[in-house]
């Protein structure tokens, strides 16, 4: 059974191009050109081989649609089930990006973007599919760095790296969403508490410390990436 994607995008050219590119990768792609079409497909697209509450494996959602805002569909999806959603938008409004991520979008891509980047984001989102019901990622390994959330152990080149409790909590939060961007607000709320969501400078300090301990070249991080103005992203683990 191939993975089925819903692409909600009103521009005909972009819709056709993305559909073809995704089909080449083996995805089954259903497309919607408007908000109402997208809502209808989400409501009725369940086939014989699919459970009614999961007609798709992933949704690619454009925000500026002719008959409304894609945010409406996002709210619908969030209310009914956890279906990975990647927002694709031409809007450069950072505030909106952050709001959508906080509201439950799995990722965002600002137009224009390359197909390689889109595929990478889709892979990450699919991997995180259903993490609310199934156990989350507990072991993460990339190159010389290894993190084991069960044993609460961080190793680099086989040597245990000593982390303070806060550093560890921050790293563990990023591991749980490995490959995905986690907003400043989410990190601060989960690690320090809801009253610290404006203390971005805490993150600067602790991310600096984590990079110094884990990165080969802290000034040019390869693991703990900065999503400028939005949050942080721990890269995908090795396969």
């Amino acid at each position: 059974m191939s993975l089925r994607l819903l692409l909600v995008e009103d521009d005909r050219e972009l819709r056709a191009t993305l559909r073809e590119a995704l089909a080449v990768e083996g995805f089954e792609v259903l497309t919607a050109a408007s908000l109402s079409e997208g809502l209808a497909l989400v409501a009725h697209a369940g086939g014989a081989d699919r459970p009614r509450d999961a007609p798709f494996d992933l949704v690619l959602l454009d925000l500026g649609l002719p008959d409304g805002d894609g945010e409406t569909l996002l709210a619908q999806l969030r209310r009914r089930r956890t279906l990975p959603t990647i927002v694709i938008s031409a809007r450069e409004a950072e505030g909106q990006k952050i709001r959508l991520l906080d509201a439950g979008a799995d990722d965002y891509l600002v137009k224009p973007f390359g197909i390689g980047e889109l595929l990478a984001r889709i892979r990450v989102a699919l991997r995180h599919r259903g993490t609310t019901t199934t156990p989350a990622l507990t072991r993460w390994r990339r190159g010389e760095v290894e993190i084991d959330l069960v044993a609460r152990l961080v190793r680099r080149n086989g040597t245990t790296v000593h982390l303070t409790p806060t550093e560890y909590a921050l790293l563990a939060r990023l591991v749980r969403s490995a490959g995905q961007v986690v907003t400043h607000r989410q990190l601060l709320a989960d690690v320090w508490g809801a009253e610290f969501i404006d203390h971005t400078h805490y993150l600067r300090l602790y991310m600096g410390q984590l990079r110094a301990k884990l990165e080969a070249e802290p000034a040019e991080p390869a693991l703990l990436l900065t999503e400028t103005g939005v949050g942080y992203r721990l890269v995908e683990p090795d396969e």
Partner: protein
Amino acid sequence: MNTSLTASSPRRWPAVLAWLAGWAAMTALDGRLDLANLAMLLVLAAAVASLWLPALVSVAAGTLAVVAFNWQFVPPRHTFEIDLRQHALLLVAMVVVNIIVATLMAGQRRALAASRRHAERAEQQRAWGDTLRDADEPLLQAGALQAALTQATGASAALLLPRGILPDRDDDAAVLVLGEPDAEQRAGLWHCLRHGQAMGPGTGRHAELPDAYLPLRGRGATFGAALLRGPWRDAEGAREHAQALCDAMGTALQRARIARDAASARQAAETQGVRNALLAAISHDHRTPLATILSAATSLDEQAERLDPARRRRLARSIADEATRLARLTDNTLQLARLDAPGVQLRCDWESAEEVVGAVLRHARRHDPARRLHARLEPDLPLLWCDALLIAQLLDNLVDNALKYSPDDAPVELLVRRQGEHVVLAVRDRGPGIAPAWRERVFEVFHRGAEAMAGAAEQRARPGAGVGLAVCRAIARAHGGELRLRPRAHGGCSFECLLPVRSAPPPPQDET
């Protein structure tokens, strides 16, 4: 003598003194001089006293003195009987001379006072005119006008002056009010302002009002209203004088408004010119990558079967590259327009220079396969209060330019260090450098007129630099910083962005 004539509150005692002296002289010389000479003393005393006395008082005093003279000196003494043949003529002549002298004196004094008053008013108007002529914003002189009106009329004055265009309704928020008028007086001021005509005593309009209202008139329009609280002494022409002071203010306000209108019209024209030139520059910048994209795409479309796979891939590659360049150009243009708008809001937060530079490096590596770009950051840099996306965009542009305009094997450095109250983010290359004449102008989006023609060749030599560097400087300045260009000792140039250091918030509490 002049001072006594024109004193604002006339002195009376010299007149009394003159009469006493005259009477004493007559009493002393009684018996030694004959009656006619004594009478001359009385006429003299009356004339001297009239210098200080109003006409009527002077006449009354003179007549009384003649009667007393008759009682005291004219035989038969201590009676009012008159020897008609001898003394009637003398006494009548004395009274008539007194009347004539007193009347002439009073008239003279009035004329002198009036001319003095005119001179004072002319001087006040001249001084007021000078004050207004030197004032850039006549509204700031409202207090001076209030004081001048009070000085001119002795009445306490209030003013109502619109701050801008006259509102449709009587809105006290839209006007400057001085002198605390009560509600009724405010209504009167608004009425006067709207109708542009004086009201109150002596104006022929609403003469029953206790106070006088004067409009501040310009040519064909009214720019405010003044209130003179009654009852006030209407020294001749005082209201006209006050009106002249008010009109001078009205004219000045009108002149200032015309100057403002002209300035904003000029500004609008300039903005339009800037916009047109910007559009021209942008469309030029956008056409270049579009041309590449279009030719590569049509080649793929129309010649597909005749192209070998490697050639097809190269064309696809160039489409992707040029589209990326176009996207960046669009980002820069939009950012420039946004930063150009008044009241732009930055999304500032505490950012670490290391992180911003890290993101820029990651971005740059995509078109820096040979890893020519090196970053060096001083340890223990303070956090920056900035919009990280904008600073990243600034550094992206500078790094992109540096990689593009320096030889393929020359290194490009990104340095961050603290320098006094600033953090300096510098991008340094070993390219051909920039001619001194162009060191400031590379930051301009475009060049107007003849310069545009002359600059066209050079702009081709550095495509896209216009919008890119202009937006970089706009970003630096929006942060209260600066972007400057310095030539390097052994060739190449260094673009240095200075951002002010602000005191950082306290770090989280230490943990063990």
